[in-house]
């Protein structure tokens, strides 16, 4: 981004005669734009990302994301460790939705292995993944409030997330990097009383959700800060390959869980257990920041009812399929895209029949969702820029992998 430096002030000494005898003196005040590094250590970038913005006063005229500050060579590591050993690394790219990452990777390898997963493991997977989706949406909602200056909703959201993390801690022993879903099933069965606690959580969470809605989502300042801001049209969203809430916020009714079904989502959908929330432009235009964040907030409730459906339908049984201790994956290539809280999380695994992958590609949804900032940030104010970055809900661990 090269900045044009114009002379700052030009005088036109000859006055212009206006009708009525008035004289107008002209003076062109032209200023040069200010280039600011927003990040890598800026509170609004949710981690270590840099956005180089050019501003004309408060107006952002150009924006360019710079990534790579958190690049940890996940794909290269995948080519160097065994299939099962890569599992803990999947936790670490989208660290807010580790269960989903585990699931995506496991499913890609299972597709190559062609192994059947026991029903109980499927249900446990679904419960964990959906609870994780709620936890992730809570962070998205909370930090979005924080971006816009509302600190309290963030702490309310984290209060519920804390409970969720404790629930995860009980089933797998970790609070953030779960490594719980494994190739072929899950690692542990639910401990006694765990399913009841999840069901109790569902009941309590429903009340709290209403609180979030009243406190932040319909707040007039919040609505004015987000409605009509950062509008992504449907065409733009598709062109940029946006997925997940970003796509649905733009009014596209598409959810991988329903439309390219996996696990038992289709069955639950047909049973009416959940819906796909789509942005409708309730407070402004379709595809604005409010729509995107509201899709996430609604998804919490949908995930909740999915969890309830799973709790009703879970049955006793084994939790792991027929999996050898040292995995040797038959040769082949498989791409599996699953619905991560941020969009389509794709895992593309190539095996040559050995213990180690030939290629372990991760298609991070945040990576693709972030690209649209270049397009929608120019023309907004500095405060809007923060709102837009927040509404993309990027996890830098995943954009950089």
């Amino acid at each position, binding site marked *: 981004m090269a900045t044009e430096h114009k002379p700052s002030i030009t005088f036109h000494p000859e006055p212009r005669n206006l009708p009525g005898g008035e004289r107008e003196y002209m003076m062109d005040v032209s200023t040069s734009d200010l280039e600011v590094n927003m990040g890598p250590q800026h509170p609004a970038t949710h981690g270590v990302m840099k956005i180089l913005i050019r501003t004309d006063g408060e107006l952002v005229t150009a924006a360019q994301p710079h990534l790579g500050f958190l690049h940890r060579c996940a794909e290269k590591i995948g080519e160097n460790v065994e299939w099962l050993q890569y599992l803990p690394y999947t936790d670490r790219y989208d660290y807010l939705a580790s269960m989903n990452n585990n699931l995506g990777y496991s499913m890609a390898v299972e597709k190559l292995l062609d192994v059947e997963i026991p029903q109980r493991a499927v249900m446990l997977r679904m419960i964990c993944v959906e609870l994780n989706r709620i936890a992730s949406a809570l962070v998205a909602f909370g930090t979005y409030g924080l971006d816009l200056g509302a600190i309290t909703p963030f702490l309310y959201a984290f209060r519920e997330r804390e409970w969720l993390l404790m629930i995860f801690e009980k089933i797998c022993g970790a609070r953030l990097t779960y490594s719980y879903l494994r190739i072929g099933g899950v690692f542990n069965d639910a401990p006694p009383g765990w399913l009841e606690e999840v069901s109790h959580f569902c009941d309590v969470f429903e009340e709290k959700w209403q609180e979030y809605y009243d406190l932040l989502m319909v707040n007039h300042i919040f609505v004015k800060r987000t409605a009509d801001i950062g509008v992504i049209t449907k065409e733009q969203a598709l062109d940029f390959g946006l997925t997940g809430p970003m796509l649905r916020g733009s009014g596209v009714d598409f959810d991988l869980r329903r439309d390219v079904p996996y696990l038992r989502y289709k069955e639950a959908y047909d049973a009416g257990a959940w819906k796909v929330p789509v942005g409708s432009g309730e407070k402004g235009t379709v595809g604005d920041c409010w729509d995107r964040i509201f899709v996430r907030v609604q998804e919490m409730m949908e995930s909740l009812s999915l969890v309830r459906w799973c709790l009703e339908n879970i049955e006793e049984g084994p939790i792991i399929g027929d999996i050898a201790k040292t995995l040797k994956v038959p040769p082949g290539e498989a791409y599996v895209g699953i619905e991560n809280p941020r969009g389509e999380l794709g895992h*593309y695994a190539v095996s040559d029949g050995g213990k180690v992958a*030939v290629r372990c590609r991760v298609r991070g949804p945040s990576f693709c969702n972030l690209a649209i900032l270049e397009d929608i940030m120019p023309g907004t104010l500095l405060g809007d820029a923060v709102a837009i970055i927040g509404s993309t809900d990027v996890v830098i661990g995943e954009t950089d992998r």
Partner: protein
Amino acid sequence: MDFQGIHDHLRLINAPGLLRADEPRAANPEDKKDKGRGGDAYLVVEADALASFLETCRDDERLSFEILADLTAVDPGKDDEDFWMIVQLLSVTLRHRLAIKALVPKDPGQIPSSSAVYRAAQWHERECAEMFGIEFTGHPDPRNILLPDDWPGSPLRKDYEFPTEYRGISCE
């Protein structure tokens, strides 16, 4: 539409650059070295025609692949002469997927950029370019995206050697 249907339709409309279908197959019991191939089915496409092939896939009404979900490359081995260029397409309205493979010779490692067809390809191509050293001709913004601008080598190639030092920082 399933893979077969998509393949047939593309044949029917004479899609540019379409070579063949690469489907998973069982192991050949007579040849002990051949273990078969599992996983997805691919359409193999001529590398130079990839962009126009994608355009066909996007614009054809019966396919309408609106989203380019993923674009990546694979280095199958040190001795292999080609990179595989893997493109995953996704249709939102018709709800089907398609995996496309194009073979890009390692020497010279050039392929026309698809970012004019799908804007989503732009960042994926930047990543591919720095990780594999593939040059995307006609790319509007060919900078590194994840690696520093002066990072030596292309890390995801199989013949990549880890640098021992980067700007005076030991990488051992």
